[in-house]
């Protein structure tokens, strides 16, 4: 199958202010050479701690940010050469839509639900008439199970789950092929989260919308996604089929992430604890593993040579000298 989205060596560096006129120029390496392929209708989970670059990668994929280096192809067409503002007016904008983290913060409080959903349609499909606009808004609201009587309400009159569904409705209203979701359920109660996850799963199955689901909760990602990509300090450290990664994570960081998830039932193995904070993404040495200093399985080799992302089997990749 041809890829819907293909990123090669996607990189985002932020230049920092020099502390003095003769000080060396420093850069914050938010995303550092990420390869990512998403096929139509696939759900990919992107997991990692805050600061690992997963939100920056999501914004690069959505073309809200301009990459420093690397290529990004959508249906075979290069889209990374367009500036972010030019992309906003291009025909490809419709194909990639984003759902933001906190629905309370990301919905304009002065717009009623109808206007919130109609806004992207007006911008991206401007030649449609009023009747078509109304029909599209109604269809998007129905697709996310938003009761019709809520269509004239304002965000503050909605519950958290309803606001999350408005955020999804406005993203799917223009008929995208890829939805990028940045922690869409982290602000919701567990009881509401289930509905939103099932809604996303249904949209993927019924409409063939591919999902890039950013989260730090491996349990949620496991249920929703076909494939998991684990990031650490701007790089992919492990990727593979969700079930395989969840059952037996190969990278020590992925293991720690999985064992940090609280569980209702007593666990079989001792938990892997990560002490301390990650290295700074500013001026980190390039000749050693970025997980050095926190890795419970660190060896002298790790401080001498940075591991490359290598295939573990046909479908899995890992960035560790010692993972098997």
């Amino acid at each position, binding site marked *: 199958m041809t890829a819907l989205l293909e990123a090669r060596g996607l990189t985002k560096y932020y230049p920092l202010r020099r502390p003095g006129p003769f000080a060396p120029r420093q850069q914050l390496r938010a995303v550092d050479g990420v390869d990512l392929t998403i096929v139509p209708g696939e759900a990919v989970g992107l997991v990692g701690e805050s600061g690992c670059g997963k939100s920056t990668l999501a914004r690069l994929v959505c073309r809200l940010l301009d990459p420093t280096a690397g290529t990004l192809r959508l249906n075979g067409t290069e889209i990374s050469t367009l500036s972010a503002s030019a992309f906003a007016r291009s025909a490809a904008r419709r194909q990639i839509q984003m759902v933001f983290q906190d629905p309370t913060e990301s919905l304009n409080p002065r717009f009623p639900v109808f206007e919130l959903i109609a806004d992207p349609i007006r911008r991206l499909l401007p030649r449609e008439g009023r009747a078509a606009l109304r029909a599209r808004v109604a269809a998007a609201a129905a697709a996310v199970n938003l009761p019709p009587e809520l269509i004239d309400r304002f965000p503050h009159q909605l519950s958290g789950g309803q606001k999350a569904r408005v955020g999804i409705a406005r993203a799917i209203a223009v008929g995208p092929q890829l939805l990028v979701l940045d922690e869409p359920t982290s602000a919701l109660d567990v009881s509401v989260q289930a509905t939103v996850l099932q809604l996303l799963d249904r949209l993927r199955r019924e409409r063939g919308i591919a999902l890039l689901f950013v989260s730090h909760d491996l349990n949620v990602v496991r249920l929703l996604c076909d494939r998991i990509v684990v990031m650490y300090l701007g790089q992919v450290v492990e990727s593979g089929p969700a079930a395989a990664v969840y059952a037996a994570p190969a990278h020590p960081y992925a293991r720690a992430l999985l064992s940090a*998830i*609280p569980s209702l039932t007593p666990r079989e193995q001792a938990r892997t604890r990560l002490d301390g904070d990650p290295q700074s993404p500013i001026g980190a040495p390039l000749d050693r593993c970025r997980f050095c200093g926190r890795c419970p399985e660190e060896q002298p080799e790790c401080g001498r040579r940075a591991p490359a992302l290598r295939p573990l089997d046909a479908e899995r990749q890992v960035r560790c000298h010692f993972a098997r």
Partner: protein
Amino acid sequence: MTQPLLSLRGLTVDFVTRSGTVNVLDDVAFDIGLGEIVGIIGESGSGKSVTAYSVMGILDRAARIRTGEILFDGTDVLRMSRAARDRWRGKDAAIVFQNPRTALNPIRTVGDQIADVMARHTPASAAELRARTVAALKQVRAPDPERRMHAYPFELSGGLCQRVGIAIALACAPRLLIADEPTTGLDVTTQAVVMDLIRSLARSRALSVALITHDLALAAEYCDRLVIMHAGHVVEVAPTARIVAAARHPYTARLLRSVPAQVASIGELQAIEGALPDLRRRDLPPCRFAERCDRRRPACDAGRLVPQAVAPGHTVACRNPL
């Protein structure tokens, strides 16, 4: 359970608002034993934070405690004088707030904020306060405490800020710690470190902890007993293992089926339909879960609902339990 340190008896709290009186807590009762970690679980709006604020005496001005007792070591804190309550708060009972970034003062160093609490309750010389501040930061395993005490909150990571929040709460060695969603907004890896810390402190100094959270899996991992709340009612109280294996209240059972860790596929995940009832209503049914419940019977609407013991240490407020 051991002898209770904290006992809530018939706590009923209203909020007086322009659009009517909201009955936020109705006849809330449970105990927290010495050195015990008790989880208080519920959706947003279930009254779990109001319960915590009632105990601490930091309720909003709109709140009215209609009836009830909050017994701390046998003394009703609601009957204490204001000055006595102020001495009690921070010294005997302390709270860790939800968002460490907003709970800390942004323009004072974290060391000063820890020393403030100590100076208030146990005055000492500046040198001694400094030494105790360093010790307090060491206790929560903040790296390099001598340097970090001079940092402002914005200079620290979220996990470290929350550890400072815990250090402030534990500054005067309280006997009761209320942790109000202490790990929301933190990464799962940091959450595990913060919760391990709270548990080890509870174990090593017989600290009683109330962990307030909507995350049932988190509570199950760390708590000895769970108190399940729904719309201002305590619906079920039992030891953690019993809740997980043999929940009797329909709401608890539904809550368990909405936890992603518990199911094998997304199809098995079950949301709880409907929302909490409007607590301003005058005609609230005796069971506030009745309108969302699939086990409702005519008897559910008849007369006051009283929690029943179904096993030692296990009470359920339901007329048609599982």
